[in-house]
Each structure stands twice: as C-alpha cells, then as structure tokens.
C-alpha cells in the first residue's frame, strides 16, 4: 500500500459521509413517496411505479453528466459554485439512491396495504393511521430499501468522478481512489482500497440492519 493510512481513513470517511448524506436525502423524499404510492388502491399509480423501478437502472455517468451541466459555472445553477465539491456528489448520488429507496418501500407497503387497511379501518382508525401503521409494519423491508440506496451511492464511480473530480483531500472517495491507483499501475493499493470499500459497506449495512431489527 503506497497510500498513508491516515489518508485511507480520510477517504473512507468521506465515502461514508457522502453516501450516508445521499441516502438521507433520498429517504427524505423516497420514504413518504413510497408509502403514499404503495398505500393507494391498486388501480392507478402504475406509471409512477414503472418510473421508479426503471430508475433503479439509472446510469450513474448520465446522472453525473446532467448534474455537471446543471452545476457548471456556465450552467443554470453555476452561481452556487457547487461543481467539484462533496455537495455535488451528494446530490448526484441522492438521485441514484432515490429510486431504490422509493421503489422498494412502495413494493413493501403495497404487499401489506390491503390487510392493514382492513384491520385499521375495522378498528375505527383513520386513513392517516393506516399510513403510519403501514410504515411501521414495513420497517424491515424499508431497512432493505435504505441499504439498497446506500449501496448504490457508495459503490458508484461514474457520477462521483464527473461531478467530484477526484480532488485529493476534497472530493476523493474510495471508488475514485481505486480508479486512480489502477491508472497509476498501483494494483495492490487499488485492491486494498477495494477491500476497505467492501468493509465500510458491510459495517454500515450491519448497523442499519441491527437498528431496524431492534425496534
């Protein structure tokens, strides 16, 4: 390993921070949307479902490119000066994580919607209580949805490279560092960084799962 250990820790922490923030943003919109769509009666909402499921296949490089044009100094949001910053990476990766979070939440909620609605309504509950009960009853598959979103965010390299620029001490994350080390011919370092990436993903997912099961 040619990289100093302190720098590996720094890069890993940034990877984790960017992916966690992206998952958080995706969940902020994706969870309510998934619950709302999933709780609706069977007819209708099919278009949204198709879009969300198709969105799981969003190509990261294309998402990165769109954000590049949006955030570039010559683009519509250029005044914010966000291109080549971690914030730009969070935004692009949130878009990549969003269909995962919303789509899997939708599927989980839909599977339970009829039964829960019958039960809650039968006990005299409101439609609002149907939604909160659905959210609670779907918490375990929702953890899977969050894990999928986090996984999509932390593992991708296309968008991170295009909107982040792989700037040392600023926007370098584990995936872009792997690409750099490979390009330099430092294959052992690249492989070691890949192992760190797998480890970070494993630990983060474990925390998420344990947190979900405990409630």
């Amino acid at each position: 390993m040619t990289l100093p250990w302190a720098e590996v820790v720094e890069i890993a922490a940034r990877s984790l921070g960017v992916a966690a923030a992206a998952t958080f943003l995706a969940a902020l919109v994706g969870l309510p949307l998934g619950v709302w769509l999933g709780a609706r009666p069977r007819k209708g909402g099919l278009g949204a479902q198709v879009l969300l499921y198709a969105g799981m296949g969003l190509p990261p490089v294309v998402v990165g490119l769109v954000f590049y044009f949006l955030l570039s100094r010559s683009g519509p949001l250029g005044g914010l000066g966000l291109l080549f910053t971690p914030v730009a990476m969070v935004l692009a990766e949130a878009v990549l994580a969003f269909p995962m979070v919303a789509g899997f939440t939708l599927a989980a909620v839909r599977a339970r919607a009829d039964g829960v609605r019958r039960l809650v309504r039968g006990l005299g509950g409101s439609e609002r209580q149907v939604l909160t009960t659905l959210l609670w009853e779907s918490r375990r598959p929702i953890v899977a949805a969050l894990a999928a979103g986090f996984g999509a965010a932390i593992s991708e390299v296309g968008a991170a490279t295009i909107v982040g620029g792989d700037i040392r001490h600023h926007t370098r994350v584990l995936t872009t560092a792997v690409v750099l080390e490979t390009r330099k011919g430092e294959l052992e370092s690249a492989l070691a960084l890949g192992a760190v990436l797998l480890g970070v993903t494993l630990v983060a997912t474990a925390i998420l799962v344990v947190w979900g099961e405990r409630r």
Partner: protein
Amino acid sequence: MKRILLLGLLMGTALAAAPLRLATTTSVNDSGLLDALLPGFTQETGIPVQVIAVGTGQALAIAGRGDADAVLVHAPDLEARFLREGKGVAHACIAYNNFVIAGPASDPARVAGAASALEAMRRIYAAGAPFVSRGDNSGTYHRERALWKAAGLEPDGQPWYLESGSGMGATLALAAEKRAYTLTDLGTYLFMKDKVELAGLYDRPDPLMLNQYGYMVVNPERFAHVNAEAAYALRAYLLRPDVQQRIGAYLKDRFGKSLFNPLYGRCKVEVEP
C-alpha cells in the same frame, strides 16, 4: 442526527476559503510531480490547490466552461485555440520531455531501428502490429493522430488498431497485456516501466516527439468568479528558477534522467493565439 451533522460538515468544507482549482493532465499528476511541487506553494501562499487530473481535452473543456481557475496541459495546438477563443490568458511553458513509442521487447515491427518517428509509425502500419491508441482526446492522443497523419497513414478501421479510451497508465497496462505498441509520454512510461512489460523502443530526440507542458490562467474577464490572483501566483511560482530546478530534478536519481525538463517559460514550440 448523525447524518445531519455529517451533511453540515460537508457543506462546511464546500464553503471554506477560496482554493485554486487546477485542471490538468494525468501525466503530471499520476507521476507524482504535482504532489512534490504544490505543498510548497500552499505553504508559502496559504492557497490550497485542488487538482482535477483528466486528459488534456477534458481539462480544457472544464476550464473552458469556467469550472477551473488554471490549466496545465500538453497540446500546443489546443492551447493556442484556447487562447484564441479568449478562454485562457498568460500562457507559460513550464517543462518538456518527449514522447516514446513503447512496445513488446521482441519488437516485431522493428521500431527500435527506425530512423525517425514517422518511419517507426510506418513500420508498425506495414507490419500490422497491434497498436493501442488512447482514443480519448488527450494530449498524447492528439500527438499520435498527428504522427499518423504526417506519415500519410490512416489506422482507423485496421483490425490491429485498438482504442483504449483510458488514461496513459491504464493504456500502457493494456498494451503490455496485448503485446501491442503504444505512444506514451516519457514521464508516465518511466513511472510505469517496472509495472508493465513494455520496452521503450523509439525514444530518440525528434522534433515530432517533443512533449511540451503549458500553463494558462482561465480568463477572469470572461468568468468573473475565477480565482485569478491565485492562478497568477501559481504561474509565478512554477516559473521561479528554484522551482524549475526542482521540476528538472524530480525523480532524476531514480530513473537516471529527468522526467520533466524545465523550460523557464521559454517555449520549444511556440503557442500563439
């Protein structure tokens, strides 16, 4: 809660003091040259430098949209166009080395015995030996295409002509795996030669093989937010005699010759707008 804190932390980094953003080519970054030079600049001036290492074509595209403050690239004709289009100012020649034709040690096309770079290209073409092109609009790719053109040859569509679409290091690795020839800058080749099985077959002084690195400030009159003060400061720093000497001495002990030869601002190939 933790996530919100993390997000805040990320926002904080983005809003910190204005650094200098340098878009540059992979060869000066991946060879470690910038890592050797830039900390000294930051120490003296307090200006942190953010390096975006991509191909020359992409570096100029990034800077041409106002997304960088300065560029350090190696394609004199593209640099001249950048100046002509009013996107860059204050061009300065920083260093040079030469391009090398690398290939399998068995040298089936007998490139090592060629009298000139054009002759070497003709021998590869005639032998139909595998050749890996960058194919990515980088400075090295531009030079390779210029060599084919000057030799009056068109390699596109030939079964032995491969385009890697990746950086110089990865292209050298690909060429080694395919036992193919490729055109490389001397710096990356020397840096990589212990890691890949490729011989430097044609590396004689040849005006067609000159590889010159130029620095430009992104035109602040065109892009108001450009950190021109910092970009000019780095220009002055890179041209300073002691820094130029350090460029020439970089890894000279290890390789027995300079990876980058200082130019003290005097271009070997004129870059005129």
